[in-house]
């Protein structure tokens, strides 16, 4: 076991982990931040996306030890300071961009990373960026729409609801 220390959602945390402990397991099991989800074993589904030093990372593809000293943000750290939904979260609710909610944390974290680099992405850019996030419920329509809306684009021309 090795001691690991990192900042998660603005708080300094530490724990003892095995070399094989994944960042996703450390977040879920040690820190009890269960909003980060595990949907596959091959780093395809994207339900586990978090931000490490500001970059979107699949936390199932990173060892906890690799995040030693890093600044990590998870879905639990996304809401506004007063607890209200942030712009992206609010857009997902307003445009029904989630159903069962399981892929949602990863979608929101990926969307945040996309909009940081590309504040007004086109539909095609959003769809391409989400290649690493699988949703089985929504057919992606409302996820893409929500991300466009969150970026301040007018989505009223996209089919209703």
């Amino acid at each position, binding site marked *: 076991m090795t001691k690991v220390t990192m900042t998660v959602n603005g708080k300094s945390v530490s724990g003892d982990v095995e070399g094989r402990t994944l960042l996703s397991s450390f977040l879920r099991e040690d820190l009890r*931040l269960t909003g980060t989800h595990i949907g596959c074993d091959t780093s395809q589904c994207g339900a586990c996306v978090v931000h490490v030093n500001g970059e979107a990372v699949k936390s199932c593809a990173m060892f906890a030890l690799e995040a030693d000293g890093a600044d990590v943000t998870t879905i639990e750290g996304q809401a506004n300071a007063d607890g209200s939904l942030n712009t992206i979260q609010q857009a997902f609710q307003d445009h029904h961009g989630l159903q069962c*909610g399981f892929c949602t944390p990863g979608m929101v974290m990926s969307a945040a990373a996309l909009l940081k680099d590309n504040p007004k992405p086109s539909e095609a850019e959003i769809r391409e960026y989400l290649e690493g996030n699988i949703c089985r419920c929504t057919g992606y329509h409302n996820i893409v729409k929500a991300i466009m809306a969150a970026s301040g684009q007018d989505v009223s021309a996209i089919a209703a609801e």
Partner: protein
Amino acid sequence: MPKDTGIGAATTRREDVRFLTGRGQYTDDIQTQGECAAVFARSTVANGKIKSIDTSAAAAMPGVLAIFTGEDFAEVGGNPAGWLINSRDGTPMHEPKRPVLAHGKVRHVGDAYAAVIAETVQQARDAVEAIEADIEELPAIVNMKDALAADHYVHDEIGTNQCFDWGWIEDNRAATDEAIKNAHHVTTLELVNNRLVPNAMEPRCSIGHYNPGTDEYILHTTSQNPHLTRLLISAFVMGIPENKLTVIAPDVGGGFGSKIYHYGEEALVLAAAKKLGRTVKWTADRTEAFLTDAHGRDHVTKIELALDEEGNFLAFRTETMANVGAYLSNFSTATPTFLHGTLMAGNYTVPLVYVNVKAVFTNTAPVDAYRGAGRPEATYSLERVIDKAAREIGMDPIELRRKNFVKPDQYPFASAAGLEYDSGNYDALMDQMEKVADKAGFEARRKESKAKGLLRGFGVNAYIEACGIAPSNLVGVLGSRVGLYDAATVRVNATGNLSVMVGAHSHGQGHETVFPQVVGEMLGIDPQSIDIVHGDTSKIPFGMGTYGSRSLAVCGSAVVRATEKIINKAKKIAAHMLEASDADIELKDGVFSVAGTDKSVSFGEVALKAYIPHNFPLEDIEPGLEETAFYDPANFTYPSGAYCCEVEVDPETGKVRVDRMTAVDDFGNVINPMVVTGQVHGGLGQGIGQALVENTTYDEDGQLLSASYMDYTMPRADDLPFYIVDHSKGNPCTHNPLGVKGCGEAGAIGSPPTVVNAVIDALQSGGKNVTHIDMPMTSHRVWSAMNNA
């Protein structure tokens, strides 16, 4: 003006907040003090004789607490099939036992033959590796045709790989044969409805807990129907009294059918929890999900359509082989029969239908209901052969469908496949589809595509499905071993807010938002003061859960009936408070008033009075305000739709891109149009996925080649377009109180043939005489078809 609340309002979902902030609680998120982990040893061969299992080395490994094998469950019951199907000759289907853990033989790759319980999941995994199982590999039975001809069997004790040979409607067989023999034209098509893996994003997970002080068990599990799971475990498998077993399905990350069924892992964690006195948790990894979740579809069908000179349909005849896999999953026998054959008249006045289905055991994972369940298979066969027929007789495919549609003045309509359709207007849906899809602009778009070197195709589909599953009286006659009602309890609390306990389970459908819209509207109160309780057998009435687009049509009807009882009782209380007669009390906007007077009491005052019954006429009115209703539907509901799809095919590569996808559906009345549209979107995504990219592949040895997201193609955002969805042309269901039909599966039913029809149209427009391509229409398949044409 759109409404803000109540029936018809596109209210945003209240459950979203917890999911968007990471505060949902899925089964694997539950962590209990002192819990230990279960990991399963699973067969790596498709068919094998278990000669010995030596667990001694594994048992000595660090952290190992217990090891179970099939021997430990030899005396407990099997996991049963919920529907008895009789073969054409009257003999009952073969029902080999489905044990908790494989015993004697393993029958598919992934079949669990042992389980290790250890302090940590890593320790359990390590110990599984140390189990020494001597399993003699036997020839795998994979292909259905080969299975029917084989002289060795998935289940030796039944001496055949055929589960049943079902005919529907058997009395019509001779007449159908005759009609086809004598017809002016017969169109024949052989097709494969590709095998799919449901792939709910949350893998299955089960946690067993046992309290030795009370002899009570609790199972947290990823289920669409906790009461059904409890019933199966109690009455069939483990024999745990129902009153000693609580099943809780908390937030569930999608189901699509795969979480209807009881699986052996659920029984294992309960048995282990009792043996060890510890909480035992098992979470599937994704490859386990691919190997062991019930798969969907997997039909091989020959369909024939007989037509007269004018293009009137005279008969449909099909022969289908339906794969049921290695064991009968709970609804596996209903899916290819009564959820499939009964829909084989489609939206049409065709007088004769005959369906033959042979269900086949193979050394593959069990196959059961997946979004649509039988109805996509029926629609695919019908709507593909109709399109082919239109081409053969030189008639426009929309015109051919319209010519044979059931007309609005024909309802109730007795279909040739044995159902009574209550309402619909298929021409109106087709009209609306042509309008919202801008069919008139297609030729211009085709020219634009041509200028880019691409072939554009236009495909259509008309579907009908049977939802609101299901009238118990009817399905009982047809072999169902369960009733398919649902239940709701409406509890008005003393302070005037409400808890509504429902048998339906929400795993993405938005019940927590939609059911309060119904109750709020009926009572004239703010839906925000109403909460839904679901998923916990210790809190809710006995309901049958969520599948078959049934939640609103069946459980929603129970909610309405229970709320009506609340209103009746509340009126009595109000009458007492206002010193008036019950019959004179009116309820409007949450206020009870005496007709023609200014005397009134609010809903909240009545609620408080119910629980502080001072000066109460106890001989007439009991204290409290809580009512339960069970609702059993009089008939199925019959959603229908007209879909179209425009694809662009690259003739150089065979690559297909869906450019436009339009779904016009008749769902009857709509409670929350936002939620309904979202349900259609999801179905369309899965249907286009089936048509273009998804496939489950076993090799000849029964190895699952598509057992991860590296190998099984899930549709991604860039595989799919924005959809055009319209449900403005609904005709209310005539037999349930909300007039609703169900919307959960439509998209997955209507879209696959639409996409295939569009691709065939594209290729034909490019001068390629391609009449059929099996799904998924990968670049390779399309390119090969073009170059062989």
